[in-house]
């Protein structure tokens, strides 16, 4: 029989996130949203959180193979995003730069690149740069080129929407040595802060999730030492790049899906609390039954979505293939989370569309969850490939 208890150990971690969320994550997320700019890297909160040993719980393990890592990931990702998804991405740590380093990096690279992250006095960030202005879901289409020149590689191209790139110690930048080879031509380079040729670094102005920076930059004859080719030449001779290096079970997609659930839960709570305050009055309110039905639908959908996330994470921890289940969780959770935040706006009515109502922020924030880490359409393509052999092109 299934068991949905999260257990005392994880519950204690969730409780810690709750405290952090109530006091810092949500207020800072709202403040950033109203100011229209990310929380700056020198904000005292980041230093404090870093000293406490908090990094991004993205469901991606810093120590691969840790027992229950994917399950821990989905639970903490949901709770962090319940308080503020933008702030959860803004948290210092390796972020998405971690998985390629752990999966592909040589021992020397791991030692050297992780060193700054062992400094618990000052917060550090890493970043992952794949997306380009002309290549989003279709990663095989990236155009940033890498050409060997002596003991260095020269990178030319542009990257966009890269989380935390501006404040990162290093960015894993993906480039191609042979565009005609698709993914097989991809190479990952660690571009360290201050490397000449990283230009036009700027953050984009977003509809939501304002608290963290999504940065864009240009690589203009950017010379990267050969020692920063992730995994070294041998890795690419032997294996098929990042995808080949990653395990076949996916912990990131269920974690991202859980973030959507977290946002939806915040919307549910806001709508439910609004209903409690405004509809438990003596006088009968005509739309009360409608409000209750919407609340029931929101709670039901987010709880079912959570089950899909948890199943995918459970499979990942059991080291069983979960590609279909991970995509199902992502497709479903992002969809219902959008619906739920919209219903919350309905429940709050004209208050719902003002900043005071809070839910309009969630409505803007959550849209990204159906776009990042594979759009809802990409998830359906992944599922259909497995179920009915939908051809790749």
């Amino acid at each position: 029989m299934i068991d949905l208890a999260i257990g005392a150990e994880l519950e204690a971690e969730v409780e810690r996130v709750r405290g952090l969320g109530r006091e810092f994550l949500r207020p800072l997320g709202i403040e950033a949203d109203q100011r229209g700019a990310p929380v700056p890297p020198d904000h005292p909160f980041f230093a404090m959180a870093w000293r406490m040993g908090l990094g991004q719980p993205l469901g991606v393990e810093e120590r691969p193979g840790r027992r229950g890592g994917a399950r821990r990931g989905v639970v903490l990702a949901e709770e962090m995003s319940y308080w503020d998804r933008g702030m959860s991405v803004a948290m210092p740590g390796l972020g998405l730069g971690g998985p390629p380093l752990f999966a592909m990096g040589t021992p020397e690279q791991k030692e050297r690149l992780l060193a700054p992250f062992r400094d618990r006095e000052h917060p550090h960030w890493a970043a992952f740069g794949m997306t380009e202005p002309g290549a989003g879901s279709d990663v095989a289409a990236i155009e940033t080129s890498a050409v060997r020149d002596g003991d260095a590689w020269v990178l030319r191209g542009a990257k966009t929407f890269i989380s935390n790139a501006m404040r990162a110690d290093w960015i894993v930048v993906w480039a191609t040595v042979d565009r005609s080879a698709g993914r097989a031509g991809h190479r990952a380079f660690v571009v360290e802060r201050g490397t000449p040729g990283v230009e036009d670094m700027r953050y984009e102005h977003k509809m939501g999730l304002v608290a963290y920076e999504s940065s864009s930059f240009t690589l203009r004859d950017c010379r990267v030492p050969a020692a920063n080719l992730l995994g070294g030449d041998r890795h690419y001779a032997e294996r098929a790049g990042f995808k080949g290096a990653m395990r076949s079970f996916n912990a990131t997609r269920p974690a991202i899906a859980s973030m959507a659930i977290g946002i939806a839960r915040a919307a549910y709570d806001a709508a439910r609390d609004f209903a409690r305050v405004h509809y438990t009055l003596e006088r009968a309110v005509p739309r009360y039954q409608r409000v209750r039905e919407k609340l029931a639908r929101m709670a039901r959908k987010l709880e079912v979505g959570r089950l899909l996330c948890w199943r995918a994470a459970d499979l990942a921890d059991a080291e069983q293939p979960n590609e279909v289940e991970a995509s199902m969780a992502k497709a479903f959770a992002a969809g219902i989370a959008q619906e739920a935040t919209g219903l919350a706006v309905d429940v709050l009515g004209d208050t719902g569309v003002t900043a005071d109502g809070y839910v309009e922020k969630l409505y803007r924030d959550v849209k990204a969850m159906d776009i990042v880490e594979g759009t809802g359409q990409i998830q359906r393509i992944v599922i259909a490939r497995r179920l009915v052999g939908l051809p790749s092109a």
Partner: protein
Amino acid sequence: MSFRLALSDEERLVRETARRFAEDRLLPRLRAHEQARGVAPELVREFAALGLVGAEAGAFVRALVLEELAAVDPGAAVALDGTGPAIGFPDAAAAGCRAVVVDDVDDRFRLHDGRIDGEAPWVPADRIDVAVVLKDERAHVVREGFRLTAVKPCGLEAAGASRLVLAGAPVAAVVEVRHGRAHLRTWVAALLVGAARGAHHYAMRYATERTAFGRPIAHHQALAFLIADLAIAVDAARLAVWRAAAALDRGETAEWEAATALAEAAEQALFVGPSAVQILGGHGFMKDHPVEKWMRDIRTLASLGGGREAAEVAAAGLAVEHEAGLR
């Protein structure tokens, strides 16, 4: 340790046994059972002898078995698990009984002097041993004095279909509903999951074999996406049912879990059933394929045990106090 959603080896074995029974014994007689409005008594005995849903079977195992049966024939599943709907009302239905449970959401039944009057326009049976009528938090057990008149149902023909009239029927026992309604809703929801899965799998296979415009229709993205969404729908509904069933087996009231399981299973199955017919196009509309039957069965199941309406009303009543956080 944190949550687990995998089945145990024993549960897998139960599921496998139920699946084999459904494929060997129900599938070949799908339309025969429909026309006969019932399954043969020998088949009922044969299923009972497997011991899959005996008195000691929990709600979770029962949900696994019902999904397997309903993935082939939801109507036959209702006929085979005769005590199933009443399982949450202790002593109401002995083993081998055929029970129906009517949740009197529209207030059609009246009690007087230890007797009950009223009628239900449809119950999924042609012959019953016991009827349980739920009025709010009381369950009224009736063992005699029924009048059953055959009606033509939208679906679930293999279970039978009658108008149930109770005219001064003696109430044999009155018990507290307690977990009974949650068991009933979980039972219906499990059948919906099975019917939806059967329809999805059939349509999915068809879509890989049927070609149009030079390729399998499943490789046209409009249908590929629909098939993916149907797969998600079935899994979402199943997990909701598993959660409710597991809560019941842990002894929880599971009122919220069961109401939402039925609401979710009904919504998803009602999306899957007609979509499966749609995928088969004109063939889907014909009785040569079973998808039209599953579509009708699903529509019919969603009105059973108070139906999705009562489940959604119940969930709405709980929503304002509900906590959706991590526990």
